């Protein structure tokens, strides 16, 4: 592994972290001096640290080398001849540098997401543990609120990052492209995230925030300093998400291999198209609403707090205008993954390709018009309730189309129940429960009962696990050979699946009953006379299993990357393009562009191939 000849300063992160920290100090110092000069008291943590954060991020990106190419271009007055692809760095060092290869960036994203996932589920377990008995169990109400809020936004950021990681690694390979259309922008998008993660982690020692991930004012305007850290972190994640959306959308429309018409794309391509469209169109709204809260906190601008002339319901409209479409950003790629894995392991074509592909767009478009169903009880205009109820329940239709299609794909198939298939089929079951329990939430009078109870918490954990976490696990087991050239350990994988599935249902099925019986969400405590304790204990035991399962997969990833069984180019006998090149995927994806001639799902049709690979590529074995 270790190359004695390597200059540590050629690793981007080694330069960027000290530069960033020094610039934070410089920015803070500068802000204090300016404040003194204008006669204000020098130290005021909010504005001073805001300046420090911005200078820190800028210096970190500069030291990382994110701007090198663009600066050289400006200085030379013409586009630099040779691209600075840092292939002289050893492989491991590329993961810590501003590398342009989409496969490196994809792994960077996914590892970041997994670290945040482990952090987030640990926070979740602490919350669950607190609720095993009435009164104080392990922490006070303030700490509980901070941990609950951080758990929420950490998982949201984790999912956005994980989604980008999956699309980064897979999409160029699946569509037969050399790389992303804008590789520098792609690396730039990723490298915004480590400071975002650092800000999120730092928000807790900085005083935390107690608003949940929704940041509703006026509470968020009064919240401690940690709120500002969180807002800036979300801003970075959002910027990364917008830039990523532009990149992926361009890839889908302009980067496909010859012969790959839109209707010859793998379903994951349609899912990515719909997700990117949402990311690019709607992320601005959360950025704007959070920025307005930040400005209200820092300089007293009056947007939302009524005592200074603002309107709190306005915030909720702006916030949900992104944050509802965002849940489709989270689940559409997962649907794409399920749609890839089910046919391969059932040895049958995806049932109703066009409907499955187009329903992603249907969900994206429909999902853009339902934001106010989060606000049925929020004091919004009453006339909005019925139109939003109708659009909301309509989204069930394209979602149902997908579920029916997956099951029909498996029907009469020749199913191999290996780990990717175990996770993919469990994802369908979990999402099904999430989807069906969501229908009452769209029907206004039913929602007025269960909104803001544990019923909601149960519902969205089912959709997030069924739409993202279980598919992510399926994806890890399925594509691991393409990333590392090795299999994940199958036996440990099955154990992981069994513990995770048991843990999941034990944790989250009780939530529906708890919510219907009046347990409010986001509460630190309940009354000893309430009938809630038993199921809270059951749920916490489940959460223990669930957290354990995530550490198991982390162990499996690390050990399999080193000692796993070697995998050939196409170990699952799949037809999509990424399996037609060697494992691990070579630096240059395709020596010459593949020529796509048919659907990627021609299972059962004799002699069907998705594409003709000109040279090299899959070396014999499958």
């Amino acid at each position, binding site marked *: 592994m270790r190359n004695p000849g390597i200059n540590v300063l050629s690793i981007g992160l080694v330069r960027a972290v000290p530069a960033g920290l020094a610039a934070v100090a410089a920015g803070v110092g500068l802000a204090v001096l300016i404040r003194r000069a204008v006669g204000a008291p020098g130290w005021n943590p909010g504005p001073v640290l805001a300046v420090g954060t911005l200078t820190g991020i800028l210096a970190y990106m500069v030291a990382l080398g994110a701007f090198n190419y663009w600066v050289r271009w400006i200085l030379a007055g013409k586009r630099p001849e040779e691209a600075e692809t840092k292939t002289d760095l050893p492989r491991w060092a590329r993961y810590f540098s501003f590398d342009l290869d989409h496969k490196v960036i994809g792994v960077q994203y996914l590892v970041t997401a997994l670290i945040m996932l482990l952090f987030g589920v640990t926070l979740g377990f602490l919350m669950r543990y607190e609720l095993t008995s009435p009164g104080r169990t392990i922490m006070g109400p303030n700490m509980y609120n901070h941990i609950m809020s951080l758990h929420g936004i950490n998982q949201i950021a984790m999912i956005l990052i994980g989604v980008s990681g999956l699309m980064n690694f897979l999409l160029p390979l699946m569509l037969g492209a050399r790389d992303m259309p804008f590789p520098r922008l792609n690396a730039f998008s990723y490298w915004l995230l480590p400071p975002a993660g650092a800000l999120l982690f730092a928000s807790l020692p900085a005083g935390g925030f107690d608003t949940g991930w929704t940041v509703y004012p006026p509470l968020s305007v009064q919240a401690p300093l940690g709120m500002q850290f969180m807002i800036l972190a979300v801003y970075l994640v959002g910027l990364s998400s917008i830039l990523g959306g532009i990149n992926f959308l361009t890839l889908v429309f302009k980067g496909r291999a010859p012969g790959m018409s839109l209707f010859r794309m793998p379903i994951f391509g349609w899912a990515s198209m719909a997700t990117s469209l949402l990311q690019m169109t709607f992320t601005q709204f959360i950025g704007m609403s959070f920025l307005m809260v930040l400005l209200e906190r820092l300089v007293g601008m009056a947007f939302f707090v009524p005592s200074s002339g603002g*309107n709190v319901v306005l915030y909720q409209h702006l916030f949900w205008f992104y944050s509802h479409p965002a849940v489709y950003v989270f689940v559409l790629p997962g649907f794409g993954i399920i749609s890839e894995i089910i046919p391969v392991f059932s040895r049958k074509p995806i049932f109703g390709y066009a409907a499955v592909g187009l329903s992603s767009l249907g969900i994206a478009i429909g999902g853009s018009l339902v934001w106010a169903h989060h606000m049925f009880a929020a004091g919004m205009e009453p006339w909005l309730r019925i139109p939003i109820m109708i659009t909301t329940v309509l989204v069930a239709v394209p979602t149902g189309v997908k579920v029916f299609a997956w099951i*029909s794909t498996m029907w009469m198939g020749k199913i191999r129940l290996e780990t990717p298939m175990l996770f993919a089929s469990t994802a369908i079951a979990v999402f099904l429960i999430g989807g069906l329990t969501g229908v009452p939430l769209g029907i206004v009078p039913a929602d*007025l009962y269960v909104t803001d109870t544990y019923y909601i918490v149960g519902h969205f954990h089912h959709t997030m696990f069924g739409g993202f976490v279980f598919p992510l696990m399926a994806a890890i087991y399925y594509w691991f050979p393409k990333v590392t050239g090795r299999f994940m350990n199958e036996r440990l994988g099955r154990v992981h699946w069994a513990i995770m599935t048991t843990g999941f249902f034990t944790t989250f099925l009780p939530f529906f009953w708890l919510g219907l019986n009046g347990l409010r969400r986001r509460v630190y405590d309940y009354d000893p006379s309430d009938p809630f304790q038993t199921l809270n204990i059951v749920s916490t035991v489940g959460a223990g299993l669930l957290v354990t399962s995530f550490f198991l997969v982390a162990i499996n990833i690390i050990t399999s990357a080193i000692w796993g069984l070697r995998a050939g180019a196409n170990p699952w006998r799949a037809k999509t393009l990424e399996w037609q090149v060697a494992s691990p995927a070579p630096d240059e994806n395709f020596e010459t562009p593949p020529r796509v001639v048919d659907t990627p799902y021609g299972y059962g*049709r004799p002699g069907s191939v998705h594409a003709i690979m000109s040279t090299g590529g899959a070396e014999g074995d499958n």
Partner: protein
Amino acid sequence: MKKHLMALAAITAVGTAVLAYLFLTKQITPARASSQAHDVDRLFSVLFAIASFFLVLCLGGLVYSLIFFRRRKGDESDGPAMFGHAPLEVTWTLVPLAIVIVLAIIGAFVLQSVTAAPKEELDVRVSAFQFGWQFNYPNEGLQTNELRLPIGQPVRFTLTSRDVIHDFWVPEFRIKEDAVPGMETTLRITPDRLGDYWALCNELCGIGHAYMRAPVKVVTQEQYRSWIEGLKKEKGS
């Protein structure tokens, strides 16, 4: 093929019947203490009964496939090349579409019923703050920290907040509404069951959120009047 479809149909029919029966007959919610609660619970029963059909159909199809359509050992061949089936796909688009539209229409009627404004309403103004409630009976000129309501009397709550967003919820009354600073919101409840309940804050409002509650008593008309008179006397003295 036909045999398997028949099996799935049987599983779906039996499973749906059992689940729907349970949802329609068993109460899985707390006591119903308002006329709105009966509407909401009936709606839930119908929604869950319909959902149980889709749950059993899909879960049944999934598990059935995983059990009966497994690859035989050593069989490396593909399954049948079924790329789709247009009439089936149209069916599973249009039938759910029709069902959700009907559900939305039912929802609209129930919404109409639980928010309808009857003629003779008791006005109660609710003022929320971190972390408590204050109730104002404007017709009596009284302010209290607990809520007493006469049974069978439609009540109009006018909600507001003095600081951050709160939410007024008595689980036994079912429906809830946010108490929002800077504006007034309305919630209509007709209590129809005597008893002691709690009004809870249902919107995260800070460190004391879990403990933000006030006692609610639904009492007879006579008890209500004498309570009001007692308070007035107390105030006068």
